[in-house]
């Protein structure tokens, strides 16, 4: 086949197995002699451990072993720092990473105290009741501001305070910008993100094979290579003797990246000690505590404006909840700090954050990874500015967009990838125009809204802009190999959790090698198939691994043409590679199949010429110098019931630019899913902790994931501004849908309920019917 598949909505290669129940997820791994683990977790957020007695549990029939922290001996050590702090001057960072099992103290509800290994999960769970634990409860650090006050309880006494990190980044001089401003507007904003809650929870299966000196770990990780290297290190094994397999993973969204969760670290060690396979599958209740969250920030932000609405500068001071430990370094708050700048010209910026230890589960990136928080602040500030200066909210955004001739646009401060925050390419105004046109912005405001208001209906409109830093380094690799049956095998080191890599990567290969997409078999997430790599996060899979796949395919194409030109004794320029074969231009009956070329490249006799390699294969790597920057605009029309404050999204438009598109069907799916998570974050999902750090709504009955009824039909459009940072021109798209939904909802709900007139401002996310009731009660009473 010679048709180009790149850019086409090709149906997915992976669907057959998933649709017929034949895909292997972690809980489907069943091994002879396999044991099962259950963990006793702390039910209080902060306590000193007085006593743990596992002796009765060990007596229960079917229990094989049980371990508390002390039983791990020298194996007990804090986990690795996953991302070191970026090179920013005068940075404070107090590294305190999570431990395999709590020793001396527990620091959040759900922190594991004991792991029980039994012949079945049922027995292991039963045995948890046999463990005697005595804890001395301590006051919990829950509120960020209180946690920083003198005399507060301390999550880590040896730090001397609850400061996890303190970072200031500046661009220009905000004070001088404010001095010459027409006006400044300052507010306090609260933004809470929630839990990723993939429908598949986490799981680990570890099998030590003493005879082969081989550890195999099935793990719901997004970054198997990191996990392999880290676990080999702590287990005292060569990396080659550890194989990490991320099978089909039922959604990741960040918290499955590479956390070295206690279960990931402890199960392999136990398997080595018992010389039997061990399995642990997280249950949904555990997921609410034992898997990382992304939670709240409090921003005190000020914007300085010219009379025409141009931004002169922004100053922001914020607190970031990092939870009980900070293994992921500063990635989330740095993303907030950087993404606040958005698609706008902000000449002067002064941003300081303090990350605070709390007695709550650990915070690490979850789809958006702090970007939402920053976008909420700048978008809300612009709404307030529009109101103050009597400029239309869409218009004030337009006036501040970075012009197309200003790229690459350097925001000077340091981003999460340690590089200056520089936007590679962009053309922002057409994206805004398309979104406004699609939603019928002017017509709604001029004609429809007055009519609806006259009917007593509360319907409002919102428009929010954002950029998304994507496709960061360090690198990924891919091996493309033509098999002797003519099919193509591709292996890469990243993991897959539904992003369609089995198809989008196959499209890249298919075009280059002239084979059918269905004849390209992609392997991800198996460290024995591909040794090197980083992982699937930060919207980087398609950009970084996709480019490596492309480079490797090109190299294989070159080899195939070289082999064929030797065989035909003709110039490579006279050859056509299509339909799985190389033929001579104009003489289609004169051809040689790719599979046969692969066989010839691995000869039984003769010699592989010096300077060449056997096989029709190539391994290539791609490391971008910095990340690509996608951008987009979401617009929505939302109706609010003024009695119940329930809402209905009547229209939802996304216009997005992620450079060249590999598969528009898969891209649309990524946007849809992101928006749905954004809607959950904006209006339905809230982690409710009491002042003792207890999560009050740890079930899917009480923590409200959006259902089919809450997510509206989305209207999508795209513009294409290729990235100059990779040959394909692609940018990442994984998080785009989720990022601007909070400020969009706040804006549209304010407009629907005409809250500006009532002097009510929505400065927090998540909102909910009851929260809207509370916020508007005062206005109603006056």
């Amino acid at each position, binding site marked *: 086949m010679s048709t180009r598949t790149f850019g086409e909505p090709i149906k997915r290669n992976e669907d057959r197995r998933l649709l017929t*129940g034949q895909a292997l997820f972690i809980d489907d791994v069943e091994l002879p002699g396999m044991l099962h683990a259950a963990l006793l977790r702390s039910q209080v957020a902060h306590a000193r451990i007085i006593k743990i007695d596992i002796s009765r549990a060990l007596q229960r029939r079917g229990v094989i072993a049980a371990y508390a922290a002390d039983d791990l001996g020298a194996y007990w050590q804090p986990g690795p720092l996953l991302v070191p702090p970026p090179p920013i001057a005068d940075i404070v960072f107090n590294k305190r990473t999570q431990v395999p099992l709590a020793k001396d103290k527990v620091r959040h509800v759900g922190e594991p105290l004991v792991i029980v290994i039994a012949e079945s999960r049922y027995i292991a769970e039963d045995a948890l009741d046999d463990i005697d634990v005595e804890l001395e409860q301590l006051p919990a650090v829950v509120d960020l501001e209180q946690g920083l006050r003198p005399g507060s309880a301390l999550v880590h006494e040896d730090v001397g305070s609850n400061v996890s990190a303190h970072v200031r980044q500046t661009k220009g001089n905000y004070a001088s910008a404010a001095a010459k401003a027409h006006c400044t507007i300052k507010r306090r904003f609260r933004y809470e993100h929630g839990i990723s809650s993939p429908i598949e929870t986490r799981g680990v299966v570890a099998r030590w094979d003493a005879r082969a000196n081989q550890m195999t770990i099935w793990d719901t990780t997004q970054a198997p290579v990191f996990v392999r290297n880290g676990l080999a290190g702590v287990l005292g094994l060569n990396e080659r003797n550890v194989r990490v397999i991320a099978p089909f993973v*039922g*959604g*990741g*969204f960040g918290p499955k990246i590479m956390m070295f969760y206690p279960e990931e670290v402890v199960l392999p060690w136990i398997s080595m000690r018992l010389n039997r396979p061990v399995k642990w599958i997280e249950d949904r209740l555990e997921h609410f505590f034992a898997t990382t969250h992304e939670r709240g920030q409090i921003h005190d932000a000020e914007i300085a404006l010219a009379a025409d609405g141009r931004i002169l500068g922004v100053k922001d001071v914020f607190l970031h909840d990092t939870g009980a430990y900070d293994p992921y370094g500063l990635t989330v708050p740095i993303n907030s700090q950087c993404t606040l700048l958005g698609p706008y010209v902000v000449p002067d910026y002064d941003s300081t954050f303090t990350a605070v230890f709390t007695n709550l589960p650990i915070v690490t990136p979850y789809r958006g990874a702090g970007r939402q928080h920053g976008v909420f602040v700048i978008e809300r500030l612009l709404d307030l500015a529009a109101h103050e200066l009597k400029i239309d909210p869409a218009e004030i955004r337009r006036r501040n967009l970075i012009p197309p001739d200003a790229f690459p646009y350097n925001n000077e401060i340091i981003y999460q990838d340690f590089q200056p925050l520089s936007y590679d390419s962009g053309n922002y105004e057409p994206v805004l125009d398309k979104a406004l046109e699609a939603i019928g912005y002017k017509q709604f405001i001029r004609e429809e809204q007055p009519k609806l208001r006259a009917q007593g209906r509360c319907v409002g409109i919102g428009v929010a802009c954002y950029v998304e830093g994507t496709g960061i380094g360090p690198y990924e690799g891919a091996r493309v190999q033509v098999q002797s049956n003519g099919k193509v095998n591709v292996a890469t080191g990243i993991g897959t959790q539904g992003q369609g890599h089995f198809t989008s990567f196959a499209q890249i290969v298919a075009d280059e090698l002239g084979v059918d997409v269905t004849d390209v078999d992609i392997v991800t997430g198996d460290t024995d198939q591909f040794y090197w790599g980083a992982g699937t996060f930060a919207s980087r899979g398609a950009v970084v691994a996709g480019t490596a796949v492309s480079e490797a395919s090109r190299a294989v194409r070159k080899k195939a043409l070289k082999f064929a030109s030797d065989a035909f004794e003709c110039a490579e320029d006279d050859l056509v590679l299509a339909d799985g074969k190389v033929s001579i231009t104009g003489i289609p009956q004169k051809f040689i199949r790719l599979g046969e070329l692969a066989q010839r490249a691995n000869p039984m006799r003769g010699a592989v010429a010096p300077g060449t390699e056997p096989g029709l294969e190539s391994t290539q790597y791609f490391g971008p110098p910095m990340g690509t920057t996608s951008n987009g605009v979401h617009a929505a029309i939302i109706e609010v019931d003024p009695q119940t404050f329930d809402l209905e999204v009547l229209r939802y438009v996304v216009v997005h630019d992620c450079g060249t598109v590999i598969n528009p069907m898969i891209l649309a799916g990524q946007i849809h899913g992101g928006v749905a998570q954004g809607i959950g974050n904006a209006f339905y999902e809230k982690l409710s902790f009491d002042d003792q750090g207890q999560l009050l709504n740890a079930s899917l009955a009480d923590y409200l994931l959006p259902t089919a009824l809450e997510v509206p039909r989305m209207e999508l459009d795209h513009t294409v501004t290729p990235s100059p940072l990779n040959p394909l021109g692609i940018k990442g798209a994984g998080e785009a849908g989720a990022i601007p939904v909070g400020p969009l909802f706040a804006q549209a709900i304010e407009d629907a309920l005409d809250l500006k007139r009532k002097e009510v401002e929505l400065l927090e996310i998540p909102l909910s019917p009851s929260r809207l009731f509370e916020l508007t009660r005062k206005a109603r009473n006056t």
Partner: protein
Amino acid sequence: MTAEAEYAAVPINVAVNGINYDAVVEPRTLLVYFLREQLNLTGTHVGCDTSQCGACTVHLNGRAVKSCTVLAVQADGAEVKTVEGLADGDNFHPVQEGFREKHGLQCGYCTPGMIMTAMHLLETNPNPSDDEIKHALEGNLCRCTGYQNIVDAVMTAAMRMRG
């Protein structure tokens, strides 16, 4: 006391995807674990253990049920259908085909439950509206797709099945 000592094993007879199974289960064994662990039908997934997410949906005597909230002993004498029983050889059931065509799945973990719920809807309402599909799927959570393509997949399947 151990689990074995506490509970007597119970014999059950269940027809799953047209095959008759005689099996012995603990009284507390959930139908989903019976299917997954004793029959090796791992296409039915557990997402929440508490009947909110719907990933474990199967058909029990023709009705869509959440198999994490049904005891295996309750299925004694019943007919069960799971996602493994839908395709006819290499040919997809129209609902499976709809999901593939409309990209109604990403990670695929909720998909078997979604499909079983959708099939039950289409067996009782062959010509559903968008809104009826959404209501029918309300008890099945998906974290990847935003549901839009799932609704379209079910609509496409409905049209195919009506012929």
